[in-house]
């Protein structure tokens, strides 16, 4: 046929309007351009100007259009009509729903505010929700950090005033060697992909340390398929080699860390292991100029790392002495750890040598003058171009806090934190633990709590204990079981509330947390706890109030549902008071705003809290004349002030002579200004303030002007964390506040003020020989926990989650792809389909997280593969360790922070005959939303 070429329109109209807001398809918070046609969402792409994603967008973000229109969206407030768990509801009015909620909450506040447990899951408005809880007066508030990555955050804050993800990032433009530890694809995902792309462009080297070689590890130049839970041992072997070879940054260590700080070294002293301080409480170092002690921050001193000092008959030694003694020990050598880590000793040495060669053989030198906090002027910024990133893979172990600490200590010994080519903080970080609040837990009927719930304890005196020594919080955060639980322990709330340990509650109020399914360990047990009744037939947890936008598994277990909007229908603020979206070179915050109005009878949860706060006459939400302080969340965002001049957003505030940024008075047009600015606001860090931030006077002054601190707060990196030592001393019998005897030994062992490695605690409760295989989950890059499966486009990518087995186990059990295996832990058993994966640690199995669904949830058909072949490993993981026969409930958590130890899971594998469905089978829940369509042609334009 002769060639014909039709005329086509290559310049069609793209949309009527573009509205710029913030994505909420995961926790990354990228900027998005929402294209509208005839008032409907037509297309979503990345915002090129946005500091987080600079125009790119992941699969989830682009699929937002189908999340916003998902058939699983709740449509109106719901009151439960069937038994809990059934999913049977009736739609009611908002007025009725709010009156019901008030009828539960008001009597609680008037008598015992702690009987409300308010936990907010994957909340991105924690500075607001915590303020509400504080005004209510309950001590029982937290978000989901305890079962996510609190080990990472807490270890980072205590060690260096910030951690990975929202706290900081690799210096992508200068780093030459990047090491990535553990499962990390679930956080900061677009920035890390963009960073990896830049490293690849520049030919920088990437080393991946992960039992599983997918995603980022697939493109790593070198892959280290480590045995789960042994990262700390591997890292400390690197430290051993670097110390032995003197490949550490002595100048950096002496100036900017507590390596030179003097420690009481008298084993008989009650202060053994504590810092020597002057009368003002400032830690002392030896000044090499004079040989005498001096406060660490004195101008002109040269802190010594080597010398001893005798004071009042007690020998004091610099922290550096202990570091040398600890890590030069042969027990930390590569030869000693290779078997346990599953990494040959020669390879560990090779990595240590590459770190040394890159850090010290190829320094990055910027001709950028700066002045440090001791007043010394530096003509250049000299950096060590090795950088690291880690997230849940390191975090979700019972030794995760000390492992994350070990990684930070390695970074610091190399002189690579806040130096060119290394790791850089994102404003408002750096911010040391001492600059954060301490936890507060004192309740008074009809009054607010005595301060913020969460914080950073400095010793036993800061624990959240009642006068009788029992836990003040339902989740037992900040108790001897997990003293440094800075994010709370959401994963223990239902279990403790059901057990009445430490006390009973009346109302469980949850937001955006699928605790009846994939967000709980021991899923089946949690479902039973939520439905368990007392002798009189009433539920053991009397009231459950829940807010969600979608028909999740948790919805079925609530008594009253307050339906939330989708992310395109709401106001939000991504605040510097909260979990900011800053980048190392700029402080940034952002908003969401209703780019379309809801077509259902739903309300943004934060606006509902403003309303509830007024109905309950909470201070902070009610004016003196009884009227509501805030009409809705947008009103709060604009007008709330946490301190004079400090509100949720820093851009476009009001000064004496007009608009200003940072500190300032409220501006009624602030949200309009954000919208006009693309939905976000950035303030660039001055160039002379761009590195060495904790010690750089230019940065410190800029941070004060922005309102991050009230005065400059230079500090030292804490290689040695003194608060840990204070808990150890208490466990040894010192001080007034004493741990229960059964915890003394564990605290002495695990609260080492220098990083240590110990085997996952569950290894002491279950037999590693009987359960020889490690079992992990990973979040796919195209899914965000349980949300992705309701999205017709995303579930075509990840609709199945076989259990991936390494070659050794496939061969041993004579398995082929599609066969079924029975997987048993000390807690439970599942039977699931399997598939082979060769690029996998030989003793590890894994699957995708949260693909498995309960029948009837998420508006999926009951025969959807997610509900028939999909499964959760959660059934194998208990929130408690197996009983030891001592009658005590030992949490399956990190003993320091309470972080849920998901990744400590050990199992055994057997071949199974194929059942009809993955086991165990959960009975279906009724769906509170109409059935989903049978086909889609999603085009809103003509």
């Amino acid at each position, binding site marked *: 046929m002769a060639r014909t070429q039709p005329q086509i329109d290559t310049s069609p109209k793209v949309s009527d309007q573009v509205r710029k807001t913030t994505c909420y398809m995961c926790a990354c918070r990228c900027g998005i351009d929402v294209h509208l*046609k005839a008032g409907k969402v037509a297309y979503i792409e990345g915002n090129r100007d946005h500091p987080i994603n600079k125009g790119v967008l992941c699969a989830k973000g682009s699929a937002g259009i189908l999340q916003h229109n998902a058939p699983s969206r709740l449509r109106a407030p719901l009151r439960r009509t069937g038994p809990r768990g059934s999913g049977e509801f009736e739609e009611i009015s908002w007025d009725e729903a709010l009156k019901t909620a008030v009828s539960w909450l008001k009597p609680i506040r008037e008598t015992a505010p702690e009987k409300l447990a308010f936990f907010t899951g994957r909340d991105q408005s924690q500075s607001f929700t915590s303020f509400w809880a504080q005004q209510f007066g309950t001590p029982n508030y937290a978000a989901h950090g305890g079962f996510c990555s609190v080990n990472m955050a807490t270890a980072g804050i205590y060690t260096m005033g910030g951690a990975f993800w929202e706290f900081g990032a690799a210096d992508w433009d200068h780093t030459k060697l990047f090491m990535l530890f553990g499962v990390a694809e679930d956080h900061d995902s677009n920035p890390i992909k963009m960073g990896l*792309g830049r490293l690849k462009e520049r030919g920088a080297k990437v080393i991946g340390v992960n039992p599983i070689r997918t995603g980022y590890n697939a*493109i790593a130049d070198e892959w280290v398929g480590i045995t789960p839970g042994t990262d700390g041992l591997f890292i400390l072997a690197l430290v051993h080699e670097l110390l032995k070879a003197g490949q550490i940054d002595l100048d950096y260590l*002496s100036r900017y860390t507590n390596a030179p700080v003097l420690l009481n070294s008298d084993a008989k002293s009650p202060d053994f292991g504590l810092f020597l301080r002057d009368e003002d409480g400032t830690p002392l170092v030896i000044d090499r100029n004079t040989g005498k002690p001096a406060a660490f921050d004195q101008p002109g001193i040269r802190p010594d790392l080597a010398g001893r000092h005798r004071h009042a008959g007690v020998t004091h030694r610099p922290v550096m002495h202990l570091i040398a003694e600890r890590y030069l020990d042969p027990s930390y050598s590569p030869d000693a750890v290779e078997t346990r880590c599953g990494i040959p000793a020669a390879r560990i040495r090779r990595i240590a040598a590459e770190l040394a060669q890159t850090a010290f053989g190829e320094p990055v030198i910027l001709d950028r003058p700066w002045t440090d906090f001791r007043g010394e002027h530096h003509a250049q910024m000299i950096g060590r171009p090795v950088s690291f990133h880690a997230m849940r893979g390191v975090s979700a172990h019972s030794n995760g806090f000390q492992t994350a600490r070990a990684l930070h200590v390695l970074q610091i010994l190399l002189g690579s934190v806040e130096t060119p080519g290394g790791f850089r903080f994102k404003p408002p970080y750096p911010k040391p633990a001492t600059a954060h609040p301490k936890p507060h837990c004192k309740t008074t009927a009809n009054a607010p709590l005595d301060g913020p719930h969460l914080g950073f304890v400095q010793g036993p005196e800061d624990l959240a204990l009642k006068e009788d020594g029992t836990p003040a919080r339902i989740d037992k955060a900040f108790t001897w079981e997990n003293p440094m639980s800075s994010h709370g322990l959401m994963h223990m709330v239902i279990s403790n509330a059901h057990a009445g340990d430490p006390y009973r509650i009346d109302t469980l109020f949850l937001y955006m947390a699928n605790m009846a399914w994939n967000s709980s360990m021991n899923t089946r047990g949690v479902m039973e706890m939520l439905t368990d009744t007392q002798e009189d037939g009433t539920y053991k947890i009397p009231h459950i109030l829940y807010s969600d936008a979608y028909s999740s598994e948790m919805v079925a277990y609530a008594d009253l549902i307050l339906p939330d909007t989708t992310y395109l229908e709401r106001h939000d603020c991504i605040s510097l008071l909260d979990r900011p979206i800053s980048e190392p070179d700029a402080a940034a915050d952002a908003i969401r705003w209703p780019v379309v109005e809801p077509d259902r009878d739903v309300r943004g949860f934060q606006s509902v809290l403003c309303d509830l706060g007024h109905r309950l006459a909470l201070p902070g939400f009610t004016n003196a004349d009884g009227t509501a302080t805030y009409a809705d969340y947008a009103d709060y965002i604009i007008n709330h002030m946490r301190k004079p001049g400090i509100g949720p957003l820093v851009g476009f505030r009001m000064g004496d002579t007009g608009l200003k940024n940072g500190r300032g008075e409220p501006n009624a047009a602030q949200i309009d200004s954000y919208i006009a600015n693309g939905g976000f606001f950035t303030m660039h860090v001055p160039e002379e303030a761009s590195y060495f931030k904790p010690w750089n006077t230019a940065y410190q002054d800029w941070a004060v002007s922005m309102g991050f601190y009230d005065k400059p707060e230079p500090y030292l990196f804490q290689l040695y964390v003194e608060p840990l030592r204070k808990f150890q001393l208490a466990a040894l019998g010192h001080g007034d506040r004493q741990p229960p005897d059964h915890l003394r030994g564990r605290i002495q062992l695990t609260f080492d003020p220098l990083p240590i490695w110990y085997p996952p605690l569950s290894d002491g409760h279950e037999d590693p020989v009987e359960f020889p295989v490690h079992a992990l989950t990973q979040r796919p890059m195209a899914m965000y926990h349980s949300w992705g499966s309701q999205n017709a486009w995303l579930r075509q990518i990840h609709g199945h989650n076989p259990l991936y087995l390494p070659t050794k186990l496939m061969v041993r059990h004579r398995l082929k792809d599609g066969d079924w295996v029975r997987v048993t832990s000390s807690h439970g058993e599942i039977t699931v389909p399997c598939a082979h994966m060769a690029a996998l640690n030989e003793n590890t199995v894994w699957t995708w997280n949260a693909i498995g669904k309960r029948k009837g949830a998420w508006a999926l058909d009951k*025969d959807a593969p997610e509900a028939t072949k999909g499964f959760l490993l959660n059934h194998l993981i208990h929130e408690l360790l197996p009983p030891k026969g001592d009658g005590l409930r030992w949490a399956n958590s990190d003993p320091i922070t309470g972080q849920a130890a998901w990744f400590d899971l050990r199992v055994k594998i057997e071949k199974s005959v194929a059942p009809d469905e993955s086991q165990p089978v959960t009975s279906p829940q009724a769906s509170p939303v109409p059935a989903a369509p049978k086909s889609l042609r999603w085009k809103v334009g003509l």
Partner: protein
Amino acid sequence: MTDLPKSTTRKLGLVIDLDTCVGCHACVISCKGWNTENDGAPLSDQDPYGADPSGTFLNRVHSYEVQPDTGPAQLVHFPKSCLHCENAPCVTVCPTGASYKRVEDGIVLVNEKDCIGCGLCAWACPYGARELDAAAGVMKKCTLCVDRIYNENLPEEDRTPACVRTCPSNARHFGDFSDPESHVSQLVRDRGGMDLMPEQGTLPVNKYLPPRPKDDWADSSVLAPFLTPVADEPRGFLGWLDKALDKI
């Protein structure tokens, strides 16, 4: 049978960097979103919330495990869409002239008005890059976002295929292969860009950059000096420390 142009003025296409693709599927969904809303029939989905969901995609990412003779297994993420072949068998096989290759830029398109949904082109394509839309009954394929790349309603920087604009790791590049100095031509030269299945004689325009060698744990002798011990035990180390501090 439909004729191909004897030559095209430009050769527009993609370079896909297999060394950098992390397999995140961002390109897959961005493509689905743009091409559902824009040019031609929407990319439909059947049984989207049911037991066996399926839909039309113009771009999919496949993952392959590679087990080299030495060293650990590797995982290669492999995005695949129409390669806009110079010698496109999908065009020549078309009985109605619906499939065609544009003379000005070499983009292979389907004129949906003339497509009878016979599926011959999908059968002829050795790459499996065409999908028949079950709802519309017409053949769908990558258009290289022909309604974006010249679109005067878009800012100039956005006149690029949706998959390229969205790719977070910068593994996708768009340009003119007829210009030896273009960014894509340079990438192909510098990184050994390859044709997919050259033995098929299709002369694909799109090129793939192969993964760089991995897991080279070989000779580390040049690194040995960096691990020369200064001391084996703490006392010696502290002595070294004292001397080293004097030099700072």
